[in-house]
């Protein structure tokens, strides 16, 4: 018998019992739908976080001094490291926080003392006015670049260049306003105030630099730059604090986005595997539903099988006929589940404000899985049908 004939027979059998076929399919539809939805959402979340992290710069090294001892890392030290050994600009930061006040209004601010380099290294954008300049640092001026939330809290609007406010016991002049990023997180730019690092050093009584970001000349130069920083920090921290050779804690840490990204990726792929695995349990349940219905169908159609065998159907002809029936149900269910999944992802994209789409690999996985389920759970009933003896089957009422 030709395969096209077998497919035709399977389709007419499925169509002659529409309600039952649909209910059987439902198990597979729900299974595939849940697998595609869960895996795609995890993938979408991963993509969106990865993009955000990459936006922060793949060629950036973030150094934090963790030793409690004083370390005497100076601006000059860092300037000397710049533009050598794969390193580009280095942006030191002296951080703190205080309440900014103007005309009786207040706003809590996270304060960063910075140099001109921060603008490039951290990718800071100013919408009006200017950023901190070298001359501000040289003259220890009380000038500030403020975030949008601060400006609104103090003045009710963001057109505030030239206005004054007080902070850290001094009055500051606003020279620029930061671009609004709109997020409400703790690290949001909108609640930040940038001032010259020399001013910050004196007002916060902090002479040593305990954190800085370094850019490298390229993403590929990350390892070289990291090595240069380790050499410098190793000599500096040991010399100034005398930290014991055998202590595990080096007294500083260097982060780069690549490390964070790969750690995040591995967490998310484990997550995806876990959720996909849980969802595939429903696929297996769907498969058992197919097997159940196929067994009922074989019993109901015993006489039909007998007639077919009497007029010359081979074992393989019957086997293929029933197997194709099972596979058609599971594949059709898989396709419907996938299309529903794609549609739902579209809707969820809008609701969750995330780029969600059905990837080729997830679709291939879902279809492959439903094909496998159809074969796995179809083979037993199909074989049972094919093994029937023609006389027994013909005698069946």
């Amino acid at each position, binding site marked *: *018998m*030709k395969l096209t*004939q077998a497919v035709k027979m399977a389709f*007419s*059998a499925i169509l*002659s019992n529409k309600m039952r076929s649909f209910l059987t399919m439902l198990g597979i539809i729900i299974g595939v739908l849940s697998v595609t939805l869960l895996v795609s959402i995890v993938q979408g979340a991963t993509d969106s976080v990865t993009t955000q992290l990459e936006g922060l710069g793949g060629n950036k090294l973030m150094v934090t001094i963790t030793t409690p001892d004083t370390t005497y890392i100076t601006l000059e030290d860092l300037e000397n490291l710049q533009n050598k050994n794969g390193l580009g600009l280095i942006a030191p930061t002296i951080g703190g926080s205080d309440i900014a006040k103007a005309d009786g209004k207040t706003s809590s601010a996270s304060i960063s003392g910075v140099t001109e380099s921060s603008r490039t290294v951290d990718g800071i954008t100013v919408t009006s006015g200017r950023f901190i300049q070298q001359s501000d640092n040289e003259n220890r001026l009380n000038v500030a670049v403020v975030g949008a939330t601060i400006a609104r809290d103090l003045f009710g609007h963001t057109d505030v260049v030239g206005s004054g406010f007080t902070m850290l016991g001094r009055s500051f002049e606003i020279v620029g306003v930061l671009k609004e990023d709109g997020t409400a997180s703790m690290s949001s730019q909108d609640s930040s105030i940038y001032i010259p690092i020399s001013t910050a050093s004196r007002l916060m009584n902090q002479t040593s630099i305990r954190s800085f970001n370094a850019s490298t000349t390229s993403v590929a130069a990350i390892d070289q730059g990291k090595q240069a920083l380790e050499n410098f920090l190793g000599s500096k921290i040991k010399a100034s604090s005398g930290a014991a050779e055998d202590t595990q804690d080096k007294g500083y840490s260097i982060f780069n986005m690549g490390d964070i990204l790969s750690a995040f990726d591995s967490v998310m792929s484990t997550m995806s595997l876990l959720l996909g695995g849980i969802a595939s349990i429903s696929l297996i349940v769907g498969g058992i539903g197919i097997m159940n219905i196929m067994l009922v169908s074989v019993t109901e159609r015993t*006489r*039909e099988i*007998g*007639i*077919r*065998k*009497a*007029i*010359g*159907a*081979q*074992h393989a*002809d019957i086997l293929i006929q029933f197997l194709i029936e099972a596979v058609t149900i599971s594949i059709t269910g898989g396709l419907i589940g996938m299309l529903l999944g794609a549609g739902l992802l579209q809707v969820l994209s809008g609701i969750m404000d995330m780029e969600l789409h059905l990837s080729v690999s997830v679709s291939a996985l879902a279809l492959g899985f439903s094909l496998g389920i159809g074969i796995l759970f179809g083979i037993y009933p199909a074989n049972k049908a094919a093994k029937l*003896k*023609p*006389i027994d089957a*013909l005698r069946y009422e």
Partner: protein
Amino acid sequence: MIELKDISKTYVLGGDTVHAVDHLTLTIEEHEFVAIIGASGSGKSTLMNIIGCLDTADEGQYLLHGQDISSYTQRQMATLRNREIGFVFQQFNLLQKLTALENVELPLIYQGMGLAQRRKRSIEALKRVGLEARMHHRPNQLSGGQQQRVAIARAIVTRPALILADEPTGNLDSRSSKEILELLHELYEAGNTVLLITHDVYTASEAKRRVRLVDGRIVLDSKFDDEAAFLAEEERLERLHREAMKI
């Protein structure tokens, strides 16, 4: 064409051993019209299943076209059923979901024949049984006699040498029965070997040769016993049967 040598088939039913066919020997030549007559339980259906390659004998040898099929595999048996034998059953055994034409096409589908050729041959077969006007009807839209004619078309569509008809008129009224028997007769005239299995003496009288089966053995064969002796024996058996019914 058919040679049965010392064939036996035994069933175990609820602990009792039943010899459905008991050391039976029978030879049927090419182009014969044979009726096998027997009451229910005489073993005629078992014999038909063995001849039709639907079942195998426990003992003895069965030669079809000189080929010993005792050693045939399931696969070879299926091929034999498909190409060499045409079945006509008491229950018609048509697939209810298929039209008359599709039912007739089915054996050719299992041969792997292409659509155009198989359609042509099926329509020819339906014409031969006079049903081409109703070929797109489903079995439940046809009368019993028409359904049996579709079954005959399905039996002859593969052009087998042997037609096996098991109580073909058992579920039909007398007029339809007559038509079906005429049709079987035509097939015999056209060169087929026809084997008619029945419990009914009247139906059997259509055949040229009659074989009477009792308890799995042949008790009479009109080919070897003379006509008068055959009829006398028939009458005696009928009488015995009637007396048995009275008790």
